[in-house]
Structures are given as structure tokens and as C-alpha cells.
């Protein structure tokens, strides 16, 4: 049986180099590949293009790579709540491409699905439109968007098996299944790694074919960005 297991995070990120395009799953701090991000922030690589819905916070998530100036360009939909990010962007040190969240999701899926381009209404008539092709279908205006792919995609799942099959938990699923499809090499870190055959084949969110490397993360801080409670 095919076995995608790697021994540890270092093996998981081996081959990642400067100037590469990297994708990171997660929404805010939820469902991010904490182990991979930490290890990448310690690696001597720079000029990265990072595709991620958000950019972490100052001392967690992609904020760690920002602080070390490893990122040349961010492609995201929302980058608030990160002072260092704002500073680098306003000073021009960091290149930022902001795109609508649904467009980001669909572009990653398209990249994984062999669809080079598609039309979406999101962004029509706004700065996002830029020089993109505009087209009318059924009297509504759409812009053409291209697929996104990455040299490496880093995703985080709740459970995974040695074949790379993944199950996410809660809303930590978000962009992970889409970026898993779009990475030339997709690295999955999981909380629970089980032998192939232990997961119910009818309940797998990401088929293992999309995953090249898998390992059990050694820690999960799972920081909560905005703790809100109902008073009992």
C-alpha cells in the first residue's frame, strides 16, 4: 500500500526553498498548519509568495514568517489584526494582493481540478476587476479569474491515515481541502494519524491522492483569536 508518512516536520518541509509559492490552509488561526509554519519560520528561506486567506497575528501563524521577513508577497482576502503586516505593507516592503474570499477558494479548487480559468461576479466594477476580462452571461457581468497552484501546500487536518486521506474538524476545514488539491507537493499535518483502512471511506473530506506527505504534529496550541461566550 502507498505510504505517505514522513517521520517529522523537518522531513515534511524538506525541499521548500526561497522564491517558492506556498499555500497555507486555515481561516484566521483556525485550522492552520502550526507545526509546518513554525518549522518554516526557522528555516533559512525568503522571498516566499504565500497564499493564505489571512496572515496570522504578530506572534502566531504566518505572522512568524512575516516577522522574519521571509515573505515577499501575500495573496489573501483579509489581513487585519496584524500590526507587523500593516507596517510592512504600508512601507512597501511587502507586496499584497487582496482578492475576494470566494474567488480565493475557487481559484485554489480550480488549480487542483485542472480548470485554468472561470468567471465570477465577485469584484466586478471594483479595484479587483483591474484589467481582468469582463463578460456578460444572462445579463449579469462577470470577471475572469485564473487558477492558483503552489509548489507546496500546507494543510492541517484532525485525522489522517497513512495514505493521506484526511478528515477535518468543525470550521477548521475552511480552505484546507482546496489548497490540498492545488499543491504540487501537499503536506498534511494531523492531530491523529491512523493506519490506512481505519477511517470510514464514506466520511473522508480530502482523498489521499491529493496529499504527498503526512505526519502527526507534535503540538497544537490552537490559539483562539476572538474568544466570545454567552453568559450562563
Amino acid at each position, binding site marked *: 500500500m502507498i505510504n505517505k508518512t514522513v517521520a517529522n516536520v523537518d522531513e515534511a518541509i524538506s525541499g521548500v526553498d526561497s522564491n517558492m509559492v506556498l499555500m497555507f490552509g486555515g481561516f484566521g488561526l483556525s485550522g492552520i498548519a502550526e507545526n509546518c509554519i513554525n518549522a518554516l519560520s526557522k528555516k533559512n528561506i525568503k522571498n516566499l509568495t504565500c497564499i493564505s486567506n489571512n496572515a496570522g497575528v504578530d506572534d502566531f501563524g504566518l505572522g512568524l514568517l512575516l516577522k522574519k521577513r521571509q515573505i515577499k508577497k501575500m495573496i489573501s*482576502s483579509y489581513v487585519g489584526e496584524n500590526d507587523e503586516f500593516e507596517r510592512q505593507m504600508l512601507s512597501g516592503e511587502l507586496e499584497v494582493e487582496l482578492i475576494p474570499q470566494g474567488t480565493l477558494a475557487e481559484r485554489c479548487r480550480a488549480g487542483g481540478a485542472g480548470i485554468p480559468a472561470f468567471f465570477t461576479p465577485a*469584484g466586478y466594477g471594483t479595484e479587483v476587476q483591474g484589467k481582468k476580462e469582463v463578460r456578460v452571461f444572462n445579463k449579469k457581468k462577470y470577471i475572469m479569474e485564473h487558477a492558483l497552484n503552489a509548489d507546496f501546500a500546507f494543510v492541517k487536518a484532525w485525522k489522517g491515515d497513512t495514505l493521506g486521506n484526511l478528515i477535518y474538524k468543525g470550521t477548521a476545514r475552511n480552505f484546507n481541502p482546496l489548497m490540498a488539491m492545488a499543491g504540487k507537493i501537499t503536506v498534511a499535518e494531523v492531530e491523529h494519524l491512523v493506519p490506512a483502512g481505519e477511517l470510514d471511506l464514506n466520511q473522508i473530506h480530502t482523498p489521499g491522492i491529493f496529499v504527498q506527505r503526512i505526519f502527526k504534529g507534535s503540538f497544537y496550541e490552537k490559539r483562539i483569536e476572538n474568544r466570545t461566550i454567552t453568559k450562563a
Partner: protein
Amino acid sequence: MALTKNEIAKRIAQELVNNTYVNLGIGIPTLVANHVPSDINVEFQSENGILGMGPFPIEGKEDADLINAGKQTITSLPGAVLFDSAVSFSMIRGNHIHLSVLGAMQVAENGDIANWKIPGKMVKGMGGAMDLVTSSNNIIVAMTHTNRQGQSKLLKRCTLPITGVSCVKKIVTDLAVIEVTSKGFKLTEVAPGVSEDEIINSTDADLTIDKNLKTMVL
């Protein structure tokens, strides 16, 4: 007297239609969930991947793996369902979501909305707003009538970069309910104790006064 944020949310809750799916944006819109009439069944979507969103958890039950698009810890209701971001925006772009309630920095009389960027000052990104405003058949804006500098947020033309073109159908502010028609803004309701003149003075665009102009009932 101008409405509180909660009162704006309460007024918007009157717009909810039975058996529909609704997306609530960050800020005032989120509060709408607290005012759903008891005879109305709606399901709330959060675009990061849940339909059937419930209230915030009780203390100690917060789960980092269960948040809404505002990154707040939430709960799920019976019948809820989880999905990825591509499926989530399929619901949105595909018009399966019946109503989106969003905050805004500006709304123009043609229905343009600006709520994602102040050039040189604030660039947080549009998140899912551009998908939401171009997709739902019903876009309601919840906002204060004027900004902190006292400037009208209802304008002839947006001066900030827009989020979407001619998409807003209705605006509920702390002063009024205003419909966006093919002829521009139409004032349909005033907040209790707020005069027509105060609304006219706070609005940097022409207003048609509805012949059935009412005072809001909250």
C-alpha cells in the same frame, strides 16, 4: 432618538423571511441573530464553513475549531452542517443564501457599497464581502447614518473604493430605514423621535419621502 446598535439589529430582524438562509456580516449584523421573531425559521450561514450557526458557547466550552467569519467562538444548532470554503461560496454566489446583512462605510444612491478599504489608511481586505454583495438577491446594510466625523455615509457616489455595484436593496441606520430604488434613496421609516429634517440633513444625497412614511416599531 437615534437607535442603538441592538435596535438597528432588532429592526433588521423584522426583514427576516420564514424558511430562508441568511448570512450576517461582522459588527451590527451579527446582532440580528439575537432578535429572530419566534414564528420565523431561518438558518444562519457563516462563510468560513458552517450553516446552522448557534449562539456563543458558555464559558469553558469554547472550541478553537468552531468559529464564525468574525473569528468568534460559536456553537452549532441541531441540523447544522460543516463544509469547506469553496462549497460555502457556492452557496453564496449560487444565490442559495436569500439575505445578506452587511456593515458599510458608504452606500451610494445607485446601490453601490464601500466597506473594505480606506486608501492609505485602512487596508484589511474584503474578506467575503465582494462575493456576498454580488450574489445574494437581497442585500441589507446595517450602519450608522453618519461616520465618526459626522459625515453622511449615504452619498450620491461612493468616494471610497467600492465593494460592489448597485447591489444594496435597503439600509437600516440609527436614524432611518431607506430603500434603494431605481430613482435613488427612498425614506420609508424614521426612528422614534427622529425628525425628517434631521435625516435629510444627515444624508448627502437626495431622498424621496415615501407617501406612507412610518415611525419604526421596535
